[in-house]
């Protein structure tokens, strides 16, 4: 017991507490890993959080994360439901078909979409020519297809575990199939829905490769801003300020979601 918690705490310290501490420090001082001795505190870097470019990126990120999560839920829940209820002998193959794409490199899949979305693409073979690069549609399609499995699996896992006799009990107690869904199946899958929403919305908030490729470099989401500040202009302080704000937004989002989970225990 003691040993385990010791390892866990060390892990927490090295991979969470120290990095976040360094980020905080970079945001409010001139701290740099390369030159740690010259330390001057100031809140100038936080000014970036009021800049127009940041606020626009934040709104865009929220917008796309919202689309992707909403659409993901709309598509993902029925898919998970059908999959979990299915008695087909090919069920495992369907589940595999959803897993396999996740194994392939995400960047590779993004680039594949990019190629298809330009007017000149392999689709010309079929007489199709798309011109989607730079549209919101392209971003949403790309994001949904990449994050959908992360919506489906937590929901599927919960639905799969539903006790069949509980479902029969609902029928026994005069619930029609629709009422049973509303009063029993849906409440019992809240945990899966919340996990799915978290696993979709949070990565969607921070993605940077996908918007860059599928917008032809025009769309700036928070992920792109942070990446630019770190990789191109070396402004770690500005990047840290934004990352910390993002962290706060996501923690608030997470806490709010947990409140919706009536029992607060379905999600581990």
């Amino acid at each position, binding site marked *: 017991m003691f040993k385990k918690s010791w390892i866990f705490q060390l892990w927490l310290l090295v991979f969470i507490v120290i990095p976040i501490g360094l980020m905080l420090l970079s945001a409010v001082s001139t701290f740099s890993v390369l030159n740690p001795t010259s330390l001057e505190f100031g809140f100038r870097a936080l000014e970036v959080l009021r800049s127009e470019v940041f606020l626009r990126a934040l709104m865009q990120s929220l917008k796309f994360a919202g689309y992707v999560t909403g659409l993901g839920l709309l598509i993902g829940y029925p898919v998970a439901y059908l999959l979990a209820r299915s008695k087909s002998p090919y069920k495992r193959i369907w589940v595999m078909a959803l897993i396999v794409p996740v194994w392939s490199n995400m960047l590779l899949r993004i680039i594949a979409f990019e190629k298809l979305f330009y007017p000149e693409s392999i689709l010309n073979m079929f007489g199709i020519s798309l011109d989607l690069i730079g549209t919101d549609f392209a971003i949403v399609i790309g994001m949904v297809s990449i994050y959908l499995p992360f919506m489906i699996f937590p929901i599927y896992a919960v639905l799969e575990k539903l*006790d069949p*006799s*509980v479902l*029969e*009990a*609902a*029928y*026994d*107690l*005069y*619930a*029609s199939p629709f*009422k049973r869904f509303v*009063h*029993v199946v849906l*409440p*019992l899958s809240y945990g899966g829905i919340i996990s799915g929403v978290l696993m979709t919305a949070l990565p969607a908030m921070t993605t940077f490769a996908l918007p860059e490729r599928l917008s032809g470099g025009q769309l700036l989401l928070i992920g792109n801003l942070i990446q630019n500040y770190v990789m191109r202009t070396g402004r770690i302080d500005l990047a840290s300020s934004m990352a910390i704000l993002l962290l706060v937004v996501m923690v608030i989002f997470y806490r709010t979601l947990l409140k919706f989970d*009536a*029992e607060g225990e379905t999600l581990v």
Partner: protein
Amino acid sequence: MHLIDIKNVKKGFNDTLALDDVSFYVRENEFVTLLGPSGCGKTTLLRLIGGFEDLDEGAIELNGHSLVDIPPYDRAINTVFQQYALFPHLNVFNNVAFGLKMKKLPKDVIEDKVMRSLAQVRLKGLENRRIDQLSGGQKQRVAMARAIVNEPKVLLLDEPLAALDLKLRQEMQYELKDLQRRLGITFIYVTHDQEEALTMSDTIVVMNEGKILQIGTPVDIYNEPETKFVAFFIGESNIIPGKMLADYQVEFEDHQYVCVDHGFRKNQKVNVVIRPEDITLKKTKGQLNGIVDAVTFKGVHYEIIVYVGKREYIIHSIYPKVKGDKVSLHFDPEAIHVMKDV
């Protein structure tokens, strides 16, 4: 007037025939028990009545109307599931209220009925408890309350007490029977515990391998088993091959005995059943003489194994014996139950 009629029901799963031409009826307010060994088709029969399986052949009728095309949520029948199947996301009150809410009863009526049925199963004060904070016995009561609150015509119970320990089980047997009498609900009760069946039922339906072997009152089934299987299943028994010499005259172990059975052919081969508690042992010689082989104390009585020749007899007696004692076996004509050798 029969409340429920089961007519020539057949049901198979892939290659197993779970129910093979099953017929019986249930009267209003009757406590009917389906009794049989594991895998004999009890649950399947109950699920057919509840509407959770479709039958292959035959008919199931409630008040003379076929139930075949009626889904479970439209049947005036409720089930107490073996593992209770309570709704884990609802508290005790809302579990019990579920059926009434689905039927859209007014709120105050629901509140009233729920509280009344919680009182009936002695769960008052627990209405706000979460399901995972209940003991096994309490869950069982919630499952009961959740079913009876709907005042169904028929209540189906699939081994509702199987998960409870012996003492609680006996307590609940008494309570269930009492509840059934007070509410006037017809019970169809599944168990593989013969003692439970004997104490609670008005009628017992003994099943084996998808078939009904015998239907009767507990006393009939116990005293007049029609087949060896029923005799064995209903409790420890001595079953001895013999033949009917004439009405009221049976021969076994090379001796003639007066009995109360008649209507057999002359010299028809039969099996004779004598219950262990119907045999008394004497030290003097008699017609059947044997040697005590083993004595086990069972609390209320001693279980004594006696060998008569090569045949083993089991006897229940309140008087102990010692291994090696020479004894004779005695029984009244009423203790001799003759059944056809099938």
